[in-house]
């Protein structure tokens, strides 16, 4: 909105036309920005062209030449060796369950703190803020030890439970500030209609705040998908690994040559790119929401 308004008002002023004529330098600035873009994207492009190159082709023509023909064997081999379909499924199921449970937990907490304004809400908020900042290293050993005691070690559930709590600490913090501004009239109207707190929550609060909840869901999903440290420690057996862990631990492997490495990187990039495209709008909006609070 602001952007279009700005443009409309400047284009009406005559100065803009003269500026355009006086400054061919503006294309120089654009060219600089495009070079920077190329530098940032280049590593991904290099990975993409080498992932579909045969090892012989790579040895003969180096990393920058386009592949002579599309060679998919590197990707297929890596996929089979790493049992990648299963890793994708593990990552997907973990991320989706964490995102759903994390949003629900954040809603409950924020309902009590933002709308219910329970006693000591400031202290609860400080608690959630600090919980959100803690390095995972300070929690990891006891969690590792306790999860072994209760038989959750090396199970996706351990990671799901831990990340649900960690993500919802952020969610509670963000959502409470949103719910503090929640229109009181809506809640009063619901109360007059005889709705209790439980019904008001599901019939009024959740539907009205759906855009924020969508942003939280997106954040939780992507953050959990990208997590490395705790899954590395908790998911030790091959069948339980998530995508980042599977890719990370294979790096020390002697069997990894240049083309296999690019192939593995490419199949790690593709899901992230798909999420990026699907969620792009929510994400940019959501980062803005996080900035204000």
């Amino acid at each position: 909105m602001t952007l279009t308004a700005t443009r409309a008002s400047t284009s009406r002023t005559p100065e803009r036309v003269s500026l355009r004529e006086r400054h061919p330098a503006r294309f120089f600035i654009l060219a600089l920005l495009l070079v920077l873009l190329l530098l940032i994207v280049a590593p991904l492009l290099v990975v993409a062209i080498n992932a579909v190159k045969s090892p012989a082709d790579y040895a003969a023509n180096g990393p920058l030449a386009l592949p002579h023909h599309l060679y998919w064997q590197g990707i297929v081999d890596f996929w089979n060796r790493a049992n990648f379909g299963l890793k994708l499924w593990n990552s997907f199921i973990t991320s989706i369950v964490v995102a759903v449970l994390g949003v629900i937990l954040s809603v409950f907490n924020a309902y009590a703190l933002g709308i219910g304004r329970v006693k000591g809400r400031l202290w609860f908020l400080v608690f959630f803020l600090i919980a959100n900042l803690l390095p995972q290293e300070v929690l990891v050993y006891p969690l590792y030890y306790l999860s072994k005691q209760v038989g959750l070690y090396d199970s996706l559930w351990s990671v799901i439970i831990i990340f649900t709590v960690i993500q919802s600490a952020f969610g509670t913090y963000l959502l409470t500030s949103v719910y503090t501004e929640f229109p009181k009239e809506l809640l009063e109207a619901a109360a007059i209609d005889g709705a209790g707190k439980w019904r008001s929550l599901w019939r009024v609060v959740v539907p009205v705040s759906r855009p924020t909840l969508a942003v939280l869901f997106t954040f939780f999903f992507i953050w959990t998908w990208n997590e490395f440290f705790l899954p590395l420690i908790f998911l030790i057996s091959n069948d339980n690994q998530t995508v980042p862990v599977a890719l990370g631990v294979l790096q020390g492997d002697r069997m990894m040559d240049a083309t296999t490495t690019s192939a593995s990187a490419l199949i790690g990039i593709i899901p992230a790119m798909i999420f990026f495209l699907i969620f792009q709008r929510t994400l940019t909006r959501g980062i803005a929401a996080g900035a204000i609070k």
Partner: protein
Amino acid sequence: MAGSTKNRGYAVYLIPGMIASIAVIVVPLVMTVYISFTKWTGIGSPRWVGFDNYTRLFEDANFWASFGHIILLIIAMAVIPTFLGLVLAAVLFDYVAKKFSDRWASVLRSGYYLPQVLPVAVTGIIWGWILHPSYGALNKIMESIGLGSLTRNWLGDPKYALYSVMFVMIWFQLGYPIVMFMSGLQRIDPELYEAADLDGATWWQRFRKITVAMIRPELYVVLVTTTIASLKIFGQIFVLTRGGPSNATLVPSYFAYKNFFEKAQVGYGSAISTVLTVLIVILAIVFLRLQNRAERS
């Protein structure tokens, strides 16, 4: 009084969240702090040793080195991206969007943000391969354009490893401040810029007096979140260098990890993580104070 009766019954909704937080955050946190005063291999029961781990820690050259490396990583992850991001966001918002189109600005923004959406492990793989001494793309490219004498073992030589990691981290982080600052810039009233133009302000003056002043809240948030992220860095180090070569890229979290899971020195590892946590919490409190003061003035 009326308020408190009306608000009764909401506290129930905190119960699941609090039980979960106590189990996953409070209890492990307290345990780690307790373990940091003991000697423990992870098996059997911990033996109380008082402040031994901490005195040992402050005499450990590796501990100081790991925090020294963090200072360089703060420069690479917080300072440089924030400064570059500020300039780039202002150029995109105030120059590209106006002189070209919003479309150009948003395409460039998305491109710069791209590295941020990749899983950390994937970032490590990409750069680990590009910087690899024998089959890496960078050395191959340098050889093919006649710079063969400048090729290095970028991640394997203690002289260059940390700088290589810093470079990768700038690449990784740059998009985050750009996106944050551009969203903050939407708030600025375009009339402010027009008034500045009428007064004959240069672009640099406008940038300092209007742009930077208006997005100060975002500036705080970006600086503190990126600084905390650099204190916590683990994944990239694990995948790129594993803290090596000869501890040249050792960072506190990896140092703690090694003590926990490789050396079975759980007490010592706990002391490292406790110190790291204290640092982060202090940083967060200082930040909140500064932010509050800025908001009041």
